[in-house]
């Protein structure tokens, strides 16, 4: 499996790196994560879709319902950490592009590290926010429910609502880009193991002569 993937990537490393940059850049405009709430009276579901720059969907209706259990209203402002996201994704895309231009094994490392850091930070922030939403409930609310943390992925039940959470293209594309970067790095490292110690361009010219 890994061997096949490496073989595929091997001869097109520059293109693969450019592709990874494009995928990451594209993610800036795409939704990261979503939650759909379905109940008998909302058969088509209520949607909350989180983008890098804002939140979309039936937010006012979700807030109207949530106020009964004393949940903090959801707004663009609330996910303040998301504001960093476009810039961070832009930086990763740029780093991947730089790696494509330089074409050295080490150059693939910075975008990969940045990506891993961002993923870790994002997951943690998301978990924190979901925890906060489910726990920071107004004690004066009309309906008292046990504090909860909605799962980041998959199905759950909150009162009459079945909730379905999913990662969307804004998360999936950078993940794919991350895999591509890792494959290029792996291919580069394998070459390094097989070939004599790295020759610079000048040394390679000499060797050819």
């Amino acid at each position: 499996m890994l061997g096949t993937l490496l073989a595929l990537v091997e001869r097109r490393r520059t293109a693969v790196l450019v592709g990874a940059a494009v995928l990451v850049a594209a993610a800036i405009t795409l939704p990261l994560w979503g939650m759909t709430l379905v109940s008998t009276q909302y058969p088509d579901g209520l949607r909350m879709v989180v983008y890098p720059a804002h939140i979309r969907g039936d937010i006012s209706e979700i807030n109207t319902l949530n106020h009964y259990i004393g949940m903090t209203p959801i707004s663009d402002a609330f996910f303040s950490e998301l504001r960093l996201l476009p810039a961070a994704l832009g930086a990763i895309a740029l780093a991947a592009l730089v790696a494509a231009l330089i074409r050295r094994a080490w150059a693939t490392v910075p975008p990969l590290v940045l990506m891993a850091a961002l993923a870790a930070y994002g997951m943690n922030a998301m978990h924190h926010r979901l925890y906060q939403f489910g726990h920071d409930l107004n004690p004066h609310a009309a309906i008292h429910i046990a504090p909860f943390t909605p799962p980041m992925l998959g199905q759950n039940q909150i009162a009459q609502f079945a909730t379905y959470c999913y990662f969307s293209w804004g998360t999936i594309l950078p993940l794919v880009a991350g895999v591509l970067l890792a494959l290029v790095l792996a291919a580069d490292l394998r070459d390094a193991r097989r070939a004599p110690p790295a020759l610079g361009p000048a040394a390679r010219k000499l060797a050819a002569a």
Partner: protein
Amino acid sequence: MKGLSGMSHARVIALAIAAGGLAACGGVKPQLAGQRQMATGDVQHAALATYVKPGDLDKYYLFYSGGHSGQVFVAGVPSMRHIATIPVFAPYPGTGYGFDEESRKMLGDFTWGDVHHPALSKTDGDYDGRWLFVNDNANNRLARIDLRDMKTKQILGPIPNTMGNHGSSMVTNNTEYALVATRFSVPLDGQYAPLEEYKTKYHGAVTGIRVDPKDGTMSVGWQIMTPPFDWDLGATGKGPSDGWAFWTSYNSEEAVGKLEVNASQKDRDYIAVVNWKAAEQAAKEGKTFDVGGTKMIDPAKVPGVMYLLPCGKSPHGVDVDPSGQWVICSGKLQPTSTVFSFEKIQQAIAKRDFKGDEAGIPVIEYDDTEIMEVPVGLGPLHTQFDGKGYAYTSLYVESAIAKWKLPPYAKGTDPKSLVVDKIPVQFNIGHLVTAEGDTRHPRGDWLVAMNKMSRGRHLNVGPSIPESSQLIDITGQKMNMVYESFTEPEPHFAQLVRAEVIKPIEFYPKAESKDPNAIWQPSEARVVRDAAHHTVEGKIYAIRSYYEPQRIQVQAGDTVILHITNAEQQRDEIHGFAVTSFDRNVVIDPGETKTVKFVARTSGVYPYYCTNFCSALHQEMQGYLEVVPPGRAMALYHNGQGVALSAPESAVADAR
């Protein structure tokens, strides 16, 4: 005049009495009175054809006139389920109509109306789903319902020189006009003249109500003065007859008193044949005289605007077939429907083939324009079409519907052979409606018979009983009755239109709100008192499940004006606002702002609450109107006036 006396007057009346007697006879089970027996297979077919299972939608909207209820009823076909009532001429607390300032102003001092003939707006002769026009026979008005939100948007009237707006509302091919004719003739401009001067001082009128093509706003365009006949019902031309309109009349005898007899003396009455485009042109050229500010055309002085065409005695309906070539008129006291050729009418006009005049209006020669007298049956009232070459005429006296063939006819056709099917209805049908039956492209699948009598075909509800409507499948050669339902009094005519033509909104989008008093945050709620003018004005915010503010203070004697915004953006999250003891209930749809106004005369505490069930905590959606006696401090205001801020009584609400 040939053939018009196909059945003697006396015989028709005798049969009418016999038919009435049969239905009224206590010993005869109504189910047996002339009903086709349904075999088990037919019952199964009918059940499947009309059953709309839970969650599924009907294929057609049926817009019924509500008669003297003053409203419009909306039902679905084929289920025949009543879905909604659109209030027009009478208050309707269910939707708060007639309680907020806007609808109160539209209704004026009237509390009811008599809705007879709804007409959908048209583009190129087909329904375009924009507006529904309905007439008020009682108080001489015309109303427009916007189908985008199914709300009454304008009530025009009373229309001048019109008493009993019955011959209305007939919409022209591209909704240039909604046409109106007065049923009763009276002296012009609301003047008095004794009934002895009926023939000289009394006049009828037909009116062109202009419809603004952009927003549908109606205004009186022009009127045509007529002899003092009683104008009954009309139709507009289409295709070759576009630009023309037709109305039936009764009482061409110009009699007063007992019209049942006095207006039935002549063997024929008239159809008005009106060139409305010529009338429009005449008004534009100033060929009018002024009657209390209305541009009145005297057809005797402006040739080419109006003609009279004799037809069967005491007609009700005059109808134009989908091709626009055939004009069909049925005299209630004749057992026939007469088919006129529009082309021949035009030829007669061009050749000046007239047989005298009435008050200077040329009378077109009957024999030269009539194509056929079709022996449809007793008491023919109104005709609709299926677009497949057939006409359907309601027979009041016979309590049946006749299906008959439209021209062209081969030479020497036996008129009797033209009637291809007849179906009894229960009982005494007035109008009928076929799917898009008055457009250029009828659908030819459904027909609804609107019967004037139900005579206990439903569970006994005492002496005040509903009307019956029956659904008939007209896809086959034979008509097939499949369902019946009962409606409140009293549908006259209806419009049956494919569901996809009508595209209503689900709620009022916040972005479209133009009301300067709309508010979208609880923090924007304000109550301001103007002590000098004894007025309190407030902007109230309503959402599940509270109002902001939850208390309003006024002084006894203050005029209270409250603008309530329903800040919801979710379908069916409708909130009410009723103030106990003040006879006010407004119902505000999601995204809508309504204004309620009243005088708080008597001091006391009057709770206000949500009337339209909205949520699990709907019952808790309430507040208090404190009407403070004079001299008592008003704690919410500084020195009794200025801006009152409601105390943040709900931390949850405040957080929003």
